[in-house]
């Protein structure tokens, strides 16, 4: 196992390097960080522009800039944004914000997705199954910016109906909240509900579709029939034999859905003005900032690779057939 993880780590790092290298080069070649400066009125003197250009090393060739940045990263210095803030100063907070969304969204997505999928399969073609199918297709085909915005409007309606602000949709917390632990916790929760829902909705829809199919396969399987022939009732057979096998395909989905989730995260964070990695990416593009965009890419690469490893390990733990003989 150790050897396997090591090899996996090496290849993962190589892949992450490629992703980062390509992103850096592409953005460095296409971004024009001085555009904002040049279009100012009254015009900024050329000497200032030249100074800024030198400060951002724009006068050097791209490979050299990449190398400088990369070596600094290896030594633990993630560099600065165009405006001069250190990446190090912001990144941990932002990762925390994004991971909170990501972990909660996955957990809710997976659990509810499995539940909905299993129920759909055991009630195939009944009314509840049709409803589930319909809802998940609608959710899957709605872009996140639309569903997030709709959620926002729904929350406004709700708040008006109730008469005070139950669900909040700007930022992660209200700086004005005072008091002890509980008021803060409630405030955080009020902010958390909508973005989490927005990001989990597509996950639930996706997982439930897969889970429904996997479960249908299992429901028609020989081993479930064997379990019934042994004297288990249908529900016992599904619980003790079916579920274990039916969740296997979901585990491999973890990697794919992590990509989807990050895209959803970018938009969700922007709609709800959460200062996470996703919103940073948008900011970075807006300010034509190579360092920010590359940093976010590095983060995404690491998350996807970690998800891949976790899903492999989980699979091996759940399915004796792939456990390696060591």
């Amino acid at each position: 196992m150790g050897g396997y993880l090591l090899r996996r780590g090496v290849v993962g790092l190589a892949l992450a390097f490629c992703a980062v290298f390509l992103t850096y080069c592409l953005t460095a070649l296409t971004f024009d960080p001085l555009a904002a400066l040049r279009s100012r009125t009254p015009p900024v003197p050329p000497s200032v522009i030249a100074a800024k250009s030198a400060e951002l090393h724009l006068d050097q060739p791209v490979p050299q800039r990449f190398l400088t940045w990369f070596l600094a990263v290896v030594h633990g210095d993630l560099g600065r944004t165009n405006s001069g803030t250190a990446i190090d100063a912001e990144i941990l907070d932002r990762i925390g914000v994004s991971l909170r969304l990501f972990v909660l969204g996955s957990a809710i997505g997976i659990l509810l997705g499995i539940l909905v999928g299993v129920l759909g399969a055991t009630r195939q073609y009944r009314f509840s199954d049709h409803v589930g199918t319909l809802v998940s297709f609608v959710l899957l085909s709605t872009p996140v910016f639309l569903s997030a915005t709709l959620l926002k409007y729904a929350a406004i309606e709700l708040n008006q109906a109730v008469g005070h602000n139950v669900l909040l949709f700007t930022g992660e917390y209200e700086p004005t909240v005072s008091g002890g632990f509980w008021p803060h916790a409630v405030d955080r929760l009020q902010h958390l509900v909508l973005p989490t829902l927005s990001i989990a909705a597509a996950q639930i829809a996706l997982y439930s579709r897969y889970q429904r199919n996997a479960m249908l396969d299992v429901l028609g399987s020989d081993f479930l029939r064997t379990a019934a022939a042994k004297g288990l009732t249908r529900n016992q057979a599904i619980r003790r034999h079916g579920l274990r096998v039916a969740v296997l395909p979901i585990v491999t989905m973890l990697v794919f859905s992590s990509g989807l989730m990050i895209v959803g995260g970018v938009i969700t964070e922007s709609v709800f003005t959460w200062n996470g990695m996703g919103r940073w990416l948008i900011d970075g593009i807006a300010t034509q900032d190579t360092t920010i965009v590359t940093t976010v890419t590095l983060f995404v690469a690491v998350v996807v690779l970690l998800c891949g490893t976790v899903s492999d390990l989980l699979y091996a733990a759940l399915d004796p057939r792939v456990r390696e003989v060591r």
Partner: protein
Amino acid sequence: MSLLDVSELTVSFGPDEAVRGIGFTIGPGEVLGLVGESGSGKSVTAQAMLGLLPARSRCTGSVRFRDRELLGLPERELARLRGDRISMIFQDPTSALTPVLRIGDQVAEAVRIHRPRLGARAAEQRAVELLELVGIPDAARRANAFPHEFSGGMRQRVLIAMAIANDPDLIIADEPTTALDVTVQAQVLEVLRTAREVTGAAILLITHDLGVVAGMADRVAVMREGQIAENASVTDLFDAPSSPYTAELLAAVPRVDDPLKIRGELPQAPDVLRVHGLTRHYPLTTGALWRRRTGTVHAVDGVDLTVRAGETLALVGESGCGKSSTLTDILELRAPMGGSIEVLGQDVSTLDSRRRRALRRDLQVVFQDPYGSLDPRMTVGEILAEPLRVHGFGRAHIGRRVPELLDLVGLRGDHAQRFPAEFSGGQRQRVAIARALACEPKLLLLDEPVSALDVSVRAGVLNLLRELQIRLGLSTVFVAHDLAVVRNIADRVAVMHLGRIVECGPVAEVFAHPAHPYTRALLSAVPIPDPVRERARTRIVLAGDPPSPATPPTGCRFRTRCFVFEVLDDEQRGACIRTDPDRRSPDGMIDHDVACHHAETGYLSGGSRR
């Protein structure tokens, strides 16, 4: 009083009736054979009795077990009976066990579900006892294994262990040996006999193999299209079948004890295929995620074969012994991994691409699965025209040739406009044969061409092949695992075991005087559809599983299962352990060679055991 009384049982799926008003009874301790071709409703009947059918099925009539009506019983009460008083064994052992749970736990569950008060430890202990009873070696340790670590035969033993866990009154076995090799089938039937002795249970034995029924059943019910065509005692059924359908079935079954349809001496003819020392190894890799080579599968390991013009050579052996790998290597027409292949006098390793293409035309193949091998979007006419077009024949020739081909394989000219989906399995196999014959090949390779077909259809296709042999003077290599089929179609037979040919000779010779212990075991394992002869036979039941081709034993590869080896003295055994015997003709055998150090000794003729 009867144990089980089925009457007027009808099962429908929507508008289709799969079972139409059947009735039969089973007495305590009785073995009832339920035979019929696939789709005749055998499995549906069995599952209907236990309420195992999907919810959209509808059952009417009556199934009384010990005077209690089972149809319409609430699920809880049915579940209480299932696995306790009535248990069931299914056809496909590979998928019948839950892949992620340990064998021992699955057997223990069968015990505990009906005796919740029995502790976990006691149930585990009982599971190990049961596994021992059905012949799992080293049961206490193997109980911790997962299903994929067991061979098909071993898994079927596990299923039998679960079926007898609670001393049932009735065991329903649905084609319990159909998915297994003959030698393994013999073992599993033996276990089923033991199970019956231990529990005294009655058995409903569902099968399409009349030989199995002849050996096991007291009474036989023949099913056809959802109805019972005949129900009689086993002797009456085989002696004097009262229904014409039964008679037809019995006549259609090829038997290993049939009189030979010898074509007479074949004239001395040149060799069309010469294979020498053919070797094909596959890397063995582990890890689903990170493939890593951990060994070598010796799929084909030094195979020598010759096929003379106009002759049919059968290649027989258990699944996984390397038959198909051998065929594929020949088909490739490229230098093999090891050894040499000579087709129609040309060494394939020396071919350039033009000559290889020309040779392709002379070498054609028919595969086992008539469903997978025909493109469903092409009409039969297009399917037959394709090889002709590829090899450059003109429109006029193709237009003439297609109806000719259809006629040759017993189909009608107007079948050319239809799609494969409109044909039955047997008809599709005829189309596949016609396609192979389109360019008038000189050598035809047949990979289990009738294994997927039902008995009556199989007889038709075999007759067709035999007719083509004579009419076209075809040379064929016929891969099969069914010795009865081989006896009916081949001139010579080569018996393959673990990547090697262990015996080769004329069919008459090999079947009458099998000289290799493995050939003898194979022949003895084939059940004969005749209750008197079948029950009077002494049978060689091999011990254990075939060894893995990744770790073949040293010396003779059959020695771990060889019953002759067992009775040899140490010095004689030494030869078996040290050297892999070469093929040679023992004294007095002409054109018949064997790879066994002790083929001449008296052990072979004398020592057969039950």
